């Protein structure tokens, strides 16, 4: 789950969601156009640099990944990770507000940034001759942002608008509710954008303090992907990020997770006539061996065009118009959810039918063609992510924050070795038919 600072249009938020949680791609095992392996270095100040040579287009992706996000916020400072992210575009000691956008777009490039529970990332995509510009800008943003109080007040209103947009979009909004239902008081259950109280209270000092505490070289990974040489990139990084001093930052202890032990039911009256239903569970972290088996179970049950729920509930019984299922991993624990779009009168029936399909998967396991298909799907998702430089940089960044680079590079091989029994076991272990979160968005008029 992520929140984008800079969507130009409403519709992009869904793509962001995908980028934030669903990207779970890996290295290709197919022969032929195998790319060279990534070069990983740790700088003397603790910053990790990952460089991947990728020659599909003359475009370089430069991503800064910072291992901080919503779950690191102080309870009195909810929303500051994201607020702080916005402020990095609002002027530095060197450049005025708006400079970063002009500089990036003046090269023909694009920039973006996302805040999630585990990480905050700043992403610049430029023609390769502007790689130096992109690295320099990110360094300046991360370490020399101004947090001008005037800009803070203006940006606060922008974030309130962002909150309104997310509330308006039911498909996103219902998944957000699922996080709070599944994780309760744990930081993973927090609102990404803070509360009106905490947001209104945020001062220059608060946001600067957040920045100084977490934006340290030891807590950062810089990923550069494109037609580039590792040595040349390292030289550029040495002159910028490499000069920032180590601060001795150590990550705080992780708060313990409480599993759901009984059904959590949240019903929300909404302005739309279309109803939505989500069933959600806690899922393993990206680094746990079960994660890949649950990925396959999710694809088989509801995550593809010919998944069980698509074929039964959508195509045969026509109880839902749309169904999807995602295993969105995070560092400490992920969330796996089924989301359907349906008519309000069918909510109870659909819940029952979903539970029946889960039970069937738990009892009988998947068929061999289903397993093969889910693996093919993963292979194809992987190839699609690795088609572009920004796709690769995204996959590397997420794995560096949530697991290890090796976890990513071997993901596909691991996935191929998973047996039907392991998929069945993952469905039994994680998709409880008695303890789950249930969130329904129903039309106000039907009440």
């Amino acid at each position: 789950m992520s929140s984008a600072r800079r969507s130009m249009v409403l519709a992009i938020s869904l793509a962001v969601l995908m980028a934030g949680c669903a990207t779970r791609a890996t290295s290709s095992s197919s022969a032929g156009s195998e790319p060279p392996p990534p070069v990983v270095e740790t700088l003397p100040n603790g910053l990790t640099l990952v460089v991947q040579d990728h020659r599909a287009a003359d475009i370089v992706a430069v991503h800064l990944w910072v291992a901080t996000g919503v779950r690191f916020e102080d309870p009195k400072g909810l929303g500051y990770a994201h607020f702080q992210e916005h402020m990095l575009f609002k002027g530095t000691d060197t450049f005025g507000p708006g400079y970063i956008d002009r500089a990036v777009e003046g090269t023909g490039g694009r920039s973006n940034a996302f805040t999630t529970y585990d990480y905050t990332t700043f992403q610049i995509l430029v023609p390769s001759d502007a790689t130096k510009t992109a690295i320099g800008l990110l360094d300046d943003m991360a370490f020399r942002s101004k947090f001008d109080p005037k800009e803070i007040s203006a940006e606060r209103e922008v974030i309130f608008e962002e909150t309104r947009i997310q509330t308006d979009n039911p498909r996103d909004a219902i998944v957000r509710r699922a996080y709070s239902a599944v994780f309760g008081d744990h930081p993973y259950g927090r609102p990404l954008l803070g509360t009106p109280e905490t947001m209104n209270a945020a001062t220059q000092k608060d946001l600067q303090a957040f920045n100084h505490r977490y934006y340290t070289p030891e807590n950062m990974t810089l990923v550069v992907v494109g037609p580039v040489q590792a040595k040349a990139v390292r030289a550029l990084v040495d002159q910028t990020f490499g000069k920032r001093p180590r601060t001795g930052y150590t990550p705080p202890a992780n708060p313990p997770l409480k599993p759901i032990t009984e059904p959590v039911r949240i019903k929300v009256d909404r302005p739309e006539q279309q109803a939505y239903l989500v069933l959600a569970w806690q899922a393993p972290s990206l680094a746990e061996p079960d994660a890949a088996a649950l990925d396959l179970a999710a694809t088989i049950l509801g995550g593809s065009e010919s998944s069980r729920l698509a074929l039964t509930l959508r195509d045969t019984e026509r109880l839902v118009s749309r169904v999807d299922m995602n295993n969105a991993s995070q560092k400490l624990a992920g969330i796996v959810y089924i989301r359907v779009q349906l008519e309000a009168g069918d909510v109870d029936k659909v819940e029952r039918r979903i539970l029946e399909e889960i039970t069937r998967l738990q009892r009988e396991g998947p068929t061999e063609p289903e397993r093969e298909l889910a693996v093919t799907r993963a292979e194809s998702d992987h190839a699609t992510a690795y088609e572009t430089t920004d796709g690769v940089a995204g996959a590397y960044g997420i794995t560096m924050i949530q697991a290890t680079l090796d976890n990513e590079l071997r993901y596909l091989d691991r996935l191929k070795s998973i047996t039907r029994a392991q998929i069945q076991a993952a469905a039994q272990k994680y998709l409880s038919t008695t303890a789950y979160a249930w969130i329904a968005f129903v039309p106000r008029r039907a009440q």
Partner: protein
Amino acid sequence: MIRRHLVLLAVLSLLAPAVAGAEMAGVTRNRLPNGFTVIVRENNAAPLVAYSLLVKMGTRNETPETAGISNMLQLMMVRGTEKMSGEEIAAAADKLGGSIDAYGDADYSEITATALSRNWQAMLDIVGDVALRPTLPDGTLGAVRDFLVRQIRNRGEKPYDVASDQTRLALFGPRHPYSWDYIGRSEAVQRLNRDTLMAWYRRQYVPSQMVLAVSGDVKSSEVMPAVQRLFGAMPAGKAEAPTVPAPPAMAATREVFKVPGAQAQIFMSTLAPALTHPDYPVLKVMSAILGGGMASRFFSELRDQQALAYATAALYPPRIDTGSWIGLLGTGPDNVAKAEAALKDQLRRIQNEPASAEEVAVARSYVVGTQQMDRRTNARQAWYLAAAELAGLPHDYFDTYAAAVKKVTPADVMRVAKQYLGVVRTVIVQPN
């Protein structure tokens, strides 16, 4: 879901240029004797292949009585052929590590498919089957129709969609095909049946109006003959040229609509020249200055400085006929009056004060870069190649377009701003 984003991106950015020269090197074209065109682009960056089968059919070919027929036909195309049911088509594509989908749009309709490149032949067979032997089965037709009617209903609940629909209606008048979204009108869609759809298919799927572009880790020497085998047998047929009514003359209008929701939308719009018009690249740069990217005035001034909007943009989708330019912003309900005045002020200023040379230079790079960025994937590459071909654009179009964009001056920008933004229509959607 993601496909629709691609469409949206296309609308935002279609036909800005590319790193053309080098990329065009790997492209092969072939026109079959029946008029069907094939384009293959070899790209071994990832083990994937993408197909884009474009037909010169869209809302532009429709009337108010058939509004939505092209899109509904497309949805039905992938729901059954003489060999396979819709479920079998989806399952087969899934098994090849890909997907196949189809939808309509304003000028063109697309059947789009991707697969792992080792399965290129099997996926091509599915594309051929869907395009050449659709049965439009009665069994699923009702469900598709219900789905569309629901989608149209849902549009009426979303502030952004209501604002775009009302803007189109105000600009083009109720009988002009650009006045409805590709999804159509509820009354028209409810009346469509298998016979009307099949007749539409026979009329529109004419080889000279079709282009199949292929991009991916494939060999042109293998793909070309395979495509020829599949599509070469189509009878040549006769292409129809739709007669599109002229939109009403521009007039300053202002309408307010109430829709439940948390956000308000303000759209200011005008009629804007077609893709092939000499002003197109200039207006594209003007549009970028106003609301193209995050360096644009809407974004930096309305959003960042004045905090009057979260979402704001200028849209200038390429069209075969006279289309639309829209400046828009989404804002909180309390901000409407201020935001409307600010947006109006933006349109006034660009007509009366020349933009700085730096601003124009950034906008030019933005327009050029947009397309370069958008064409990163095989699916988009295929779509661009097919769309340029169907639009009758020269093969070096992307180069000449980029050159035209790079020549735009501050004076050019002020000239088109005066010419096109003097009179605008305003549509406001507010929560009730």
